[in-house]
Structures are given as C-alpha cells and as structure tokens.
C-alpha cells in the first residue's frame, strides 16, 4: 500500500524494563512500592548530539505508544496522532526527536493489570496498584533517562495526555522547557468523574468481570463496550452528533417498533464499543480512569491553590482548548491560564472554535499544527531572548 509521503513510515514498538530489583522499585504516589516495570515506547526522528530536541508525546485514555507511522507494510491504520507527527508536521520529525510511550497501567505493552505478576505467575488483575498520573510520569522519566534525555524540549498531549504534560512541568520543572496542554485540565470536574464512574460501573457489573479475574476466559465485553459508548458520547458534541447522524436510520426507511439498533447513532456506538473490546483491557479502563479522577494539581501541589501549584513551573506553556468540548470544557483551560498569568508565567492560550467536541484535539490539526509548530520552533530557537525573566 502506498503511504503518504509525510509519514514517519514503518515504525517498531520498543520495550524498556526497569525496577527489577527490590531496591529499585518505583515508589507510587499511594506509597506502595512497585516493580518491575516494562514500558512500551516508540521514537521518531533523531536525537541530536546536544540532546536538546526531544519531545515527549503523551497519549489519552485509550491511546498507546504508537503515535505515528505504520507497524507493517500492509498496516492500514497509522498511529493515533498521525496527523500531527511526522516530517513537516506540527511535531516535525525532520527537526525533532519524538518519543511516545504507553502509560503505566496500560494494556499495549507497558506493565498494567493484564501483565503477568512475576511474584505469582498470574496476571495482576485487581492486585495491580492504583496508580496516578504522577506515577505514569515517573515511568516516563525513567524512560527519558534510559534514552539519554536530560531535558525535554516539549511535553505534549491532549486530554489525559495534557494532564501528563502538566504533571511533567510540575514534577520535573528543570527537565521541561515547554509543555503543550491540549483539551485538558488541572483536575476533572464532577461531571467528568461521574462519566468515568458510570463507565467503571458498567465494567464491574458485567458478570464476566469476575472481580477482575477474567484473563484466560471471556472478557467483560458488554461492560467495557458500554463504557466506551458513554465515552464516545462525551467525546462528541450535540452539534457534531447532529451533523454526523441526525435522526437517520441505519438500514431501513421506517421504524421497526422493536429494540434493535435502528438509529445510525446507535449502530455507531455499537460499532465503537465492539471495536474497543478487541483492543483494550477492561481492567486498564478501570485503573486509567481512576488515575484521571485522582489527578488534582491544586490539591497535590498547591495545598488547594492552583496558582500556588503552577508557580512551581519553569516551562513555557501553551494551552489549547476547543469551544464545543464539554468533557474538558474551555473554562477549565481558562482557569489554568488565569492561574498561570497570576503566577507570572510564560503562558499562551488559544480557544479553538470547533464543532467537534472533545475529539477536536485529534481533528483540528490544521490550526493546531500552525500553533504548536510555531510554539515549539520559537522555544527551540530560543527566540524568547527574555526567557530568564519568567
């Protein structure tokens, strides 16, 4: 199959394992010690000799280390951020060295609840510790050290990826030159936690979930699929759903007067649910949504004050939000912006006009490319000759 010219082309997922010895275990935010950890990652572009052109890309809830390119000759589906990562794109692999890894607790190569617990020889399942966004970032930091990257030119991600970018700038202020936080927040709203809770309840109440010990047998497909359906509703917007589906029926001209999936929007959700079950682990969904719910920057870093928390940051910041995003609404980005301004930080913000809801961060790539590309170039070229001011 002919691949578009501006792709990173064929890529391979790599693996790095650490914390194998008891005394090197990762100390989690919960206080628990955990190891060993394997992290799945991909890299695109070349790390220069000064090692100052590395950019870490952080994925959202259902993403993985495969941000760009194709895994094989016949691979039809590129990585999750293909529109933004590649030669001449927002994250320009001609200039910069891109790294993307699967999060701790994930299910696409990095240690998570489906991984085998070396101490028992069985999958961790619910014995996997509750991890936080901070723990995910600690694992990424280990990976950076492994790759020889001391200071990142940028950390970027959308949604939960944006949380990680913010966490990086807070936890390792001297290791991040800029953070690009897209469609994200410093802490989830009650509404978003509520949606996560419903998703988790759908999984847990599936009889096939069996307390999380379903590995080797039937997976809780129904529960996970419902969780994904709810997720998808929250990723779209009233307007984008109306434009995409309206009240159109899937296969017949008239109503059936039964309870099959008649409306196009219903079959869309069915399809998304089923497709998700094939590639995602239900327990990972529980752990990762929990990590998002726990993410609370003002509480963890500022004793309740967002401004105090953000005052720790030394990185330049670019915040992007989308007008129709109601899962991570613009007001949350604006709260962050205001706290950054109040703390006297180098922060830029654009609320992009888009009808696509939360998903816009993956779709509005044309404007995002210009904004992000410009921001990264300016940071890299050190054109902000007054950098030391901030």
């Amino acid at each position, binding site marked *: 199959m002919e691949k578009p010219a501006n792709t990173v082309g064929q890529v391979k997922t790599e693996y790095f394992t650490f914390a194998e010895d008891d005394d090197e275990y990762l100390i989690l935010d919960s206080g628990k010690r955990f190891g060993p950890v394997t992290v799945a990652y991909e890299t695109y572009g070349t790390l220069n000799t000064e090692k100052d052109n590395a950019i870490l890309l952080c994925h959202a809830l259902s993403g993985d280390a495969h941000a760009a390119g194709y895994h094989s000759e016949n691979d039809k589906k590129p990585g999750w951020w293909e529109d933004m990562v590649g030669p001449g794109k927002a994250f320009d692999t001609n200039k910069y060295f891109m790294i993307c890894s699967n999060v701790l607790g994930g299910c696409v190569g990095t240690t998570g609840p489906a991984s085998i617990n070396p101490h028992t020889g069985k999958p961790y399942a619910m014995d996997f510790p509750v991890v936080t966004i901070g723990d995910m970032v600690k694992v990424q930091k280990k990976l950076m050290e492994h790759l020889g990257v001391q200071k990142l030119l940028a950390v970027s991600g959308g949604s939960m990826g944006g949380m990680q970018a913010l966490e990086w700038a807070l936890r390792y202020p001297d290791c991040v030159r800029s953070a690009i936080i897209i469609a994200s927040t410093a802490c989830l709203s009650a509404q978003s936690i509520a949606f996560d809770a419903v998703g988790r309840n759908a999984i847990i109440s599936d009889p096939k979930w069996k307390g999380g010990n379903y590995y080797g047998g039937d997976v809780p497909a129904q529960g996970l699929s419902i969780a994904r359906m709810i997720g998808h509703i929250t990723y779209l917007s009233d307007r984008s759903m109306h434009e995409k589906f309206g009240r159109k029926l899937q296969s017949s001209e008239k109503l059936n007067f039964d309870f099959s999936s008649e409306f196009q929007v219903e079959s869309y959700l069915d399809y998304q649910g089923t497709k998700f079950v094939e590639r995602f682990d239900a327990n990972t969904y529980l752990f990762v949504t929990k990590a998002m719910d726990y993410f609370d920057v003002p509480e963890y870093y500022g004793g309740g004050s967002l401004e105090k928390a953000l005052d720790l940051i030394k990185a330049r910041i670019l915040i992007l939000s989308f007008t129709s995003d109601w899962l991570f609404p613009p007001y949350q980005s604006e709260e962050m912006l*205001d706290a950054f301004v109040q703390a006297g930080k180098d922060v830029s913000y*654009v609320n992009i006009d888009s009808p696509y809801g939360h998903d816009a961060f993956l779709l509005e790539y044309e*404007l995002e490319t210009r904004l992000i590309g410009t921001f990264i170039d300016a940071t890299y070229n050190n054109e902000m000759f007054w950098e030391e001011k901030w």
Partner: protein
Amino acid sequence: MVSNNPRKFVTIDDRLDFGVISALIEEDTWVLDLGCGSGALLEYLIKTKDVKGMGIEINIEKTIVCMKKGIPVIHQDLNEGLSNFKEDTFDYCVLSQTLQVVQHPDELMLDMLRIAKFGIVSFPNFGYYRLPLKLFFRGKMPQSKEFPYDWDNTPNIHLVTIKDFRDFCKKNGIVILKEYHNYGEEYSPGLTLANKRSKNCVALITHERKLK
C-alpha cells in the same frame, strides 16, 4: 475564539507612539498589551525596557506571529472583558490605538486599571483641528493618516477627543499622570491647545483608589 472577523486594528505609524510609551514604562516590570497585534510594541518594550511582556490579540494570524517571536499571547476578544484577570496582576496595561475600536471603552479602561497598577492609553485625537475643517468644507467624513477609513469600513466605533478623554477620566476616578501629544512627528508633554493641535494622545493613567 477563532473567528474570521475581518476587523482591522488601526495601525497607523505603529512605531510613532512606541518611543513615548516605552518612556512611560519602568524597567523590569510586567506589561500586558491589549490588542497587541503582531507583538511589535511588546517586542520594542522587551528590547528597550527589559519588561516581561504578554499580549492579548483577537486575530489568530497575528497571535501566531506573536508566538513566532516567543511572546506569550492570549487569543481573546477584548469586547468580552478582562474579568478573567485578577486585581493588580500587571504593572502596566497598554491600550495602544485600540480604545476607539472596542465596544465598551469605558468598561475596558476601568477594567485595565483594576488588573494593572498603571494604564497607558494611546489614541488618535478626533479633536485635531483639521478634521472638523475637512468635514465642514468637504461635507464628507474626514480622513487623515490617523483616520484612513471610509465611513462604511472603519473599525472606529468610539471616536474620542482629548477633551472627551479627560472628562471621562475625571468622571470615573481615573487620574491622568502624564499626557503626551504630537503635532509633528515627535511626542511632547503638555502641548498648548492640545485638543485642537494634537494628532494623537498618549496618557499614563491610574485609578485614584490606587494612589491612596
């Protein structure tokens, strides 16, 4: 919000008021430029006064130019106000050639003096004697270097004279600390008959409650 609003900001002789604005600003302070355009003034202030500069701009293309220069910029419509910023966040808030194009210049001026200790307002003076003469003799909306627009495409919705400005300040507890005018190319303080003779005005203002 990104909009394709074709509204132009008046950018007559961008550079002309830079020098006088810069002269009014203390070194090493924090400056917010309202309607910063492509960041030319901020760049000038950063170079001449070593300030920490940040801009607000509604035009997305100009916003991107600011980013290119490494200037922190917020893509925001000034007509939606500045309520998002807290009191006394900035040392200076600059409104350069923007006063006359916003919907609520009164609210904006009071708001800028809430979020900053000082305000600097630079505007073209509609009281300049040639303008009414042009109107009188030609019977058409007067045009000049400062007012280059036709009636149907002007972004200026709140034309103001120096006298109007002074009256407004007085009525609203705003103290004019310094006022600069230009007759020719140079700005100078206290031009006699400024309201008639000056083409532009640059004023350093604060709110009286901040002087207490």
